């Protein structure tokens, strides 16, 4: 331990003697002064919270958190809305429209139809069965829920007409060959039952001396279509 007087002496020597070997030390102090100055003169920047107190910062953080929560909720709500619009309403509406379109295509006869149904054969060598009876049969089939009907080689649609020509029944201008074949697709049992009710189509055909035969088929094919432009 040095004496205080000696220490003071050393201090005096250090302060007032040209210190030759202390060049590096001077350099280090220069660096230190530079660092301190730089640290103290650091640009304040434009962040007002650089010198804010902790409580203030916590308050600001809370506010920001609450705001973020609100915005998150809003974003989630909008995302749900978008979801509903894309999948829920629009796509579902589109699928519904497609189903409606398919149904309408079947009804207007612009597409081929396969499915269970009945095949009706009317054997009428005398020509006793006229268009009225055939129209009754078609109406009866429609009432029974037939989705698609074909008479002879003609698809029965909304604007199909029935008439009597010199060679027999005419449907949409096409003569119906004998024996008359009617294909109907729908609830097969229901269609068959509708044909055979007492006083129905089958009875009226038979009273005219013709043969009526209805057979239930698992797969009836109606491939005749009406051109779409015709509608």
């Amino acid at each position, binding site marked *: 331990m040095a004496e205080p007087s000696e220490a003071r002496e050393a201090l005096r020597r250090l302060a007032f003697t040209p210190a030759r070997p*202390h060049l590096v030390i001077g350099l280090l*102090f220069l660096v230190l002064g530079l660092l301190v*100055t730089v640290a103290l003169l650091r640009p304040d920047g434009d962040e007002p919270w650089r010198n804010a107190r902790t409580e203030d910062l916590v308050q600001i953080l809370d506010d920001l958190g609450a705001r973020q929560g609100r915005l998150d909720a809003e974003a989630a709500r909008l995302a749900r809305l978008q979801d509903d619009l894309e999948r829920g309403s629009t796509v579902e509406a589109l699928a519904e429209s497609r189903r409606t379109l398919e149904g309408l295509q079947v009804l207007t006869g612009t597409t081929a139809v396969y499915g269970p149904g009945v095949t009706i054969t009317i054997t009428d060598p005398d020509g006793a069965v006229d268009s009225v009876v055939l129209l009754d049969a078609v109406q009866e089939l429609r009432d029974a829920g037939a989705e698609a009907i074909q008479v002879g080689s003609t698809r029965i649609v909304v604007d199909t007409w029935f008439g009597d020509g010199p060679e027999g029944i005419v449907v949409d201008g096409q003569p119906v060959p004998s024996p008359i074949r009617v294909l109907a697709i729908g609830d097969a049992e229901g269609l068959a039952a509708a044909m055979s009710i007492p006083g129905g189509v089958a009875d009226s055909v038979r009273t005219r001396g013709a043969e009526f035969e209805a057979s239930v088929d698992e797969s009836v094919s109606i491939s005749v279509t009406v051109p779409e432009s015709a509608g």
Partner: protein
Amino acid sequence: MIAIIGLLVGIAIGILWHPTVPLWLEPYLPIAIVAALDAVAGGFRALMERRFDDRIFVVSFLSNVVIAAFLVFLGDQLGVGAQMSTGVVVVLAMRIFANAAAIRRILFRA
């Protein structure tokens, strides 16, 4: 003498040049300053005890700064940068106080 001149020149350069600290260096600046101050305090104490060695002073100054900066860097990498900075500053401040106490005892016998 030269130490005081160096210090003044450094301050003058800092004020006049007004350098901007790179962002990656920002966290190390206060640590480096405190480490340097610790080295200065240690050197001053050694001077008072008449065992000052400029070589030791230079080495301790540089190693103090480098080690302190490295510790903070390590803390940053480990995700405890703020705590490490605090720890380093606390330790260095304690050393500065200890050195200051020793200097005070020698100078004023108190």
